């Protein structure tokens, strides 16, 4: 016997004893292994607002499910992984979740992270159900990604329609985030194409990379130089807030819009008065008075001491879809088939149904920041 092996054996015995005891206790308590649902999102870094709200929405859905679950029904747990806003982080998150036996994960929350995580998910058989990813390139593709959001084509097209037709804007200048190019560039292209079709003019279309040094100054200078009086930012909340502050400092009274990506509370907190009047597409109706919405909102406020944002609502819906589909899946059916063949699912504010590629259409509500809150815009009113 090698020295130390006895100690190791004793350690193993203790662990085995603990494991047996733990399993006995859990059996005695009638627990059973809970169903694990994964979560991949940016929980640190400058998209953490979306990730955190998404995590909150998913967590709330699961906690409510577990609270209301009848006796004996299987509990659900959320295994949360931070993709650290990096491709490596996203791959590792997907890998770890798949390794720990997770079959379905909520997330990722933006296209760059989806690009990174999807190959690993395909390889490991992990189904990604993204509440927010909208890049058009995922549309019509049969893959391990199911999206609850509309495509950038739909959303950017809707922005163009809204701004050109409803607001009567003739010229815009666009700044888009190079770091989430898969989303933002495609969004900018779709928007510009549609906007021009509607007779508008795109005076500038500028990429920026805030982290690459040089800040937002160059981009803002280009936008200002284009002479347009309406800027559109295809960026997250932090960047959009900063761009708004710089733009309004340079040209007071500018009309501003930001892609739906930025439509979180962080935009207003960080942008302050400089984001007042900014146009935003929300994928939910914050002013809804339906009982479902009000009870969700109250539960969310109580649980997280914060207001729900679009990613919270979408993640809540995503968990609802997953639990509903897995609850009624047939023997031998994959989670993906269960989700796609089931439905339509009842979301908080809309019915959700998928085509055979896992694409769907999300609710659209245009808002503007007024007095520090998002207010639905209806120029017709």
């Amino acid at each position: 016997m090698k020295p130390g092996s006895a100690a190791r054996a004793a350690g193993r015995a203790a662990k085995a004893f603990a494991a047996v005891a733990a399993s006995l206790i859990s059996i005695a308590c009638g627990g059973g292994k809970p169903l694990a649902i994964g979560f991949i999102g940016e929980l640190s870094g400058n998209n953490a607002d979306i990730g955190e709200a998404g995590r909150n929405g998913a967590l709330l859905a699961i906690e409510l499910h577990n609270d209301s679950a009848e006796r004996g029904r299987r509990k659900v747990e959320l295994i949360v992984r931070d993709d650290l806003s990096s491709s490596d982080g996203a791959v590792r998150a997907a890998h770890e979740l798949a390794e720990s036996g997770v079959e379905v994960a909520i997330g990722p929350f933006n296209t760059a992270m989806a690009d990174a995580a999807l190959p690993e998910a395909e390889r490991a058989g992990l189904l990604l159900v993204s509440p927010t990813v909208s890049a058009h390139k995922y549309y019509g593709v049969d893959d391990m990604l199911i999206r609850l959001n509309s495509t950038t084509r739909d959303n950017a097209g809707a922005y163009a329609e809204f701004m050109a037709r409803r607001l009567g804007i003739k010229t815009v200048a666009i700044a888009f985030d190079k770091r989430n190019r898969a989303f933002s560039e495609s969004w900018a292209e779709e928007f510009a194409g549609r906007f021009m079709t509607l007779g508008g003019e795109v005076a500038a279309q500028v990429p920026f990379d805030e982290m690459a040094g040089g800040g937002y100054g160059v981009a803002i200078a280009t936008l200002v130089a284009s002479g347009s009086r309406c800027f559109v930012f295809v960026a997250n909340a932090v960047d959009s807030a900063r761009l708004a502050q710089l733009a309004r400092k340079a040209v007071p009274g500018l009309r501003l819009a930001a892609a739906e990506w930025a439509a979180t509370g962080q935009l207003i907190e960080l942008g302050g008065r400089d984001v007042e009047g900014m146009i935003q597409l929300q994928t939910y109706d914050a002013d809804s008075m339906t009982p479902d919405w009000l009870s969700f909102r109250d539960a969310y406020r109580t649980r997280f001491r914060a207001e729900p944002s679009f990613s919270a609502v979408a993640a809540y819906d995503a968990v609802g879809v997953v639990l509903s589909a897995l609850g009624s899946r047939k023997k031998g059916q994959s989670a993906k088939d269960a989700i796609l063949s089931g439905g339509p699912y009842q979301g908080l504010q809309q019915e959700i149904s998928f085509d055979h590629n896992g694409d769907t259409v999300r609710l659209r509500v245009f808002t503007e920041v007024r007095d520090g809150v998002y207010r639905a815009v209806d120029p017709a009113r």
Partner: protein
Amino acid sequence: MRGSTRGFLGAVYLLVVMATAFNLLLVGSAIALYRLPSLAHDGRQAARSTADALEARLEALFGSIQARLELLAATAPLLSENVQEDQMSEFVGDGSAVRAVYMLDSKGRVLRAQAAAKDERLSELRGADFSYTPLYRAVSETWTPVWSDKFISVFSGDTAVGVGLPCGDGVIIAELSLGSVLDTVRLASSEGLDAPAWIVDRKGELVADTEGLIGPGEANLLGEPFVRYALEGGVATETARIGDTLAHLAATRSEKLGWTVIARAPAGIRDQHFQAMALDIIAMGAGAIAFGLLIGAGWAKSVGGNVRGLVELSSAVSEGRDPGEPFRGVIREFDAVADELRALGKAVDERERSLRSLNEELEDRVAARTAELEGALERLTSTQDELVRSQKLAALGNLVAGIAHELNTPLGNGMMAVSTIADHHREFAKEIEGGLRKSALDSYVSETGAGIGIALRNLRRAAELIGDFKQLAVDRASDVRRPYFIDAVVRENLAALYPALKRTPYTVETAVEPGIAMDGYPGLLGQVIVNLVNNAVTHGFSGRDRGVVRISGARAGEKVRLSVSDDGVGIPDEAKPRVFEPFFTTRMGSGGSGLGLYIVHNAIVNALGGSVSLESEPGKGTTFTLELPLVAPERKG
């Protein structure tokens, strides 16, 4: 033999293991029960001290940053812009603790921002509106130093926490990267803490985990009741389930930082002390089992040998062999068992012997008894036969008496007539000595003629009677088979009974169809009739002053139905099934032999091939109905 010993060894091992395991369970449970409260107390103590210590250390570490910022805030309004910037730059230093510092004006717009490295973005921040940020709002509302929850920095685009405090009529904010916060927490928790801890902000967001298991942002603990209670200001220490894990929890809220330290010492089976205790108990148990098995093996071996010896002994005893040398084993009881076995063998031997002799004796006794019984049975049978015979003789006696009586009248009359003739003859002889006279001769002739006529008539009557009785006697005595008329047999037998019946107040009426020719044993039938009539008179009319016996007979197909009925007292129900049994009588000791109806039954069923049935109703009389074939079967033997 080997197999059974192995089985025994296995049983011993199993017993040792089971007994030890049971003891272990019992003792272990007792120890655990005894120790658990103090373990729980220790655990809660560990959590409490950890929470308090960590909170104090964090306040001290972050408090030093705040103190420096307060110094900066106090001096800044007095300094020129350049010196302010120098001071801010010095405050930030290499950025390892504080990443950036912002000076905001009274409207919340950035006046100046300073970071470790010169950065284009810093100048861009100038004029940026921070008035909607929770930190600015909190400071401007309370006008006191405030530590923020986790937020995303507009400067770095990264998650951060900040401390803000009033500075002149504006606000100054120091931003700490989450990385540096984690470093600080790591430093604070690097040693001397008894339990891991979480640091959560006001929203329940996990800021740091001293174990590093959960990353910042990966958890919001407000959903845990304990955390919510602590965040709402409760100073809590308890043992509760957090997530799926039982832990001793203690929360300490830092008023200064707005953060709450949640220390959690593992409870239950995750508690190291508990594990150590469990391990001790298990080790103890394992040692005991090993020792037990060792001892058990040796013991089992010698016991096994003893058991084999005992088995040998017992088989010797059971086969009646000589058990050999006295047995000496490891257990006194085994010796006792062996001694008992020997004694048993001896006792069995003796008992066997005595049983054998007893058995032989018994056989003799059984044989003797059987012989006795056979003799008794023989005697009984002969007695029964004798009784039947004497019954017959009695009947014959009656018959003779009847005959004598019947003959008495004609013979008496005949005697009287003849003696009268004799008297006349003597008187006539005396008269003719004196000379025969015609008148005397005439008188003699007429008187003698009359006398002779009377004598002749009576003698003829007697002869007729004797003829009848002769037939009856022949029948009775010989049981000869012959053809007969049933009415004649009835009449003859009643005639024989007549003298006896005449002395009683009872009468016999007959209504037998005349001329029914039969072939069989009229003697037996006659006896049957006599017995039935006697039975009616003796039993049916017992104590009555009148009674009628009716005998009726008629042909029914190939049979004759003859019934003898009386209007007497009847036969009680309980006696009915037994009346045909031999020696059954209700008048034992007063003349009844108990054989009358038995003879009836025997004669009818066995000799005449017929059947006899009985109808009787108490108080209304009894009817015996005989059904007889016209031709009786041949008698066997």
